[in-house]
């Protein structure tokens, strides 16, 4: 069976664990790769540095946090959208900030969706499952 792959970019391990738990509970058959900062995310996607030997296919979806050390989410987004090979990759910004300027910056940077992580775990689960259903089940990733 085809296993969708998701790249989760989040410096907050607790948040990452909750998101993974949500996906697991929804019985989403997704492989989740976790990277914890922007530099690592680009290394992963470009198969460089630590990920030079990565053999797996590229993910069907990137879940991207905004506030991260070294290279923040917006910078990662800018790199992706300038890269001929990666620019079609769906990116969902998954962050804590509901600030209008952040939302605008996310969409202007080429994000496919902007999602604010709710405090309530049940709401978070619902949101993550929604994202999974749409991007991993309903949506056809670029070839």
């Amino acid at each position, binding site marked *: 069976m085809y296993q969708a792959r998701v790249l989760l970019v989040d410096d907050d391990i607790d*948040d990452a664990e909750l998101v993974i*738990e949500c996906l697991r509970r929804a019985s989403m058959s997704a492989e989740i790769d976790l990277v914890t900062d922007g530099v690592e995310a680009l290394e992963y996607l470009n198969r460089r540095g630590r990920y030079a030997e990565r053999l797996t296919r590229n993910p069907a979806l990137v879940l991207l946090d905004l506030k991260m050390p070294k290279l923040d989410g917006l910078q990662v987004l800018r790199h992706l959208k300038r890269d001929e090979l990666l620019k079609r990759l769906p990116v969902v910004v998954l962050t804590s900030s509901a600030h209008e300027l952040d939302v605008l910056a996310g969409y202007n940077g080429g994000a496919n969706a902007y999602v604010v992580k709710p*405090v309530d*775990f049940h709401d978070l689960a619902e949101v993550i499952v929604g994202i999974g259903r749409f991007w991993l089940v309903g949506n056809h990733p670029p070839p």
Partner: protein
Amino acid sequence: MPDVIRALFDTGGFPARWYCGVWSAQLGWLHIISDVLVFGAYMAIPCLLFYFTRRRPDLPFLPVFWLFCAFIAACGATHFIEATIFWWPAYRLSGVAKLLTAAVSWATVLALIPVLPRALALPGLAKVNTDLEAEIAARRAAEAEVKVLNADLEERVAERTQQLTEANRELEGFTYTVAHDLRAPLRHLHGFSTLLLDDLTVDRGDRLAHYAERIANGALRMGALIDDLLAFTCTGQALGQLERLDVNPLVAEVVEELAPSTAGRHIDWQIGRLPMVIADRALLRNVWTNLLSNAIKFSAQRAAARIEIGAQPGGADEVTLYVRDNGAGFEMEYADQLFGVFRRLHRDAEFDGTGIGLATVRRIIERHGGRVWAEGCVDAGATVYFTLKAAA
């Protein structure tokens, strides 16, 4: 008395002057014409002096002027009598006139003596002018100084305004960051306590599950507080478009919007005729939403809840609007606390909420230049009043 006057005008014993001595016509008329001219001039001078003193009541030594008038007029009279004596030898009258003149003249001399040093002490016109010029210069210097001080003041006001604006911006940034960064740990608290709860209910004691639930609820409540604080920080930071607004449809809209929260309840809405006001539509809508949801919430325990919305005539160009309910009310003693951020007069268990609603109302109304206050009584309901500019 008539005897004295008769004696005064008696000319007996004297010939007219023409017949006393050998007068040539030229010499006689020289005397007569000169005396009459002197008389005319001496009468004119007091008249002019009199006119002058009347027009200049501020003159110093005014009595001396009056004495001058009297003595010059007396001199004039003696000259006139001298002229008439050529035909009418009234030497007695002439003598008395000269005596009077002498008396007035000496009175003038005596009056002048004490006045003289004081008159000398008066500053000359040149001195007065110099003094005036000095004063003008001093005033100009003072004016210039005031201008400099004003400019300095304006500069300081601008500087303070700038500092205040920066402080405000920093505060907003701070509030945003706090609100934003505080949400992540809360999500973890709620998330993991929920996971814990799910695992516990199966085979562990209820006590642990209860604790996990308490943690999860605490996290949710804190999340709500942060969201409200963030909303409050953003609300009414700037007054938007002020327009002429009909309050009636706005209130009707809000009442309809809140209908789901009153499902299953009977509320007697008493909505009076509301006036036109000058306000920002979105912000005023927020005010009504807060006030009406409060009224709905705090009257929830009444079998027959009544919510009254009305207007009272305010000052010249303002109107007072109010929302009155027959709900839980509050103690008047704490009326001021109602409008503070996160100030609540009821426990969460009685009525939910974070305590930001009335703070938001106050903020918006004050941004509009209005006032807001509340009246109430425990178990007898509350009335919240606010003022807005009336639309002409």
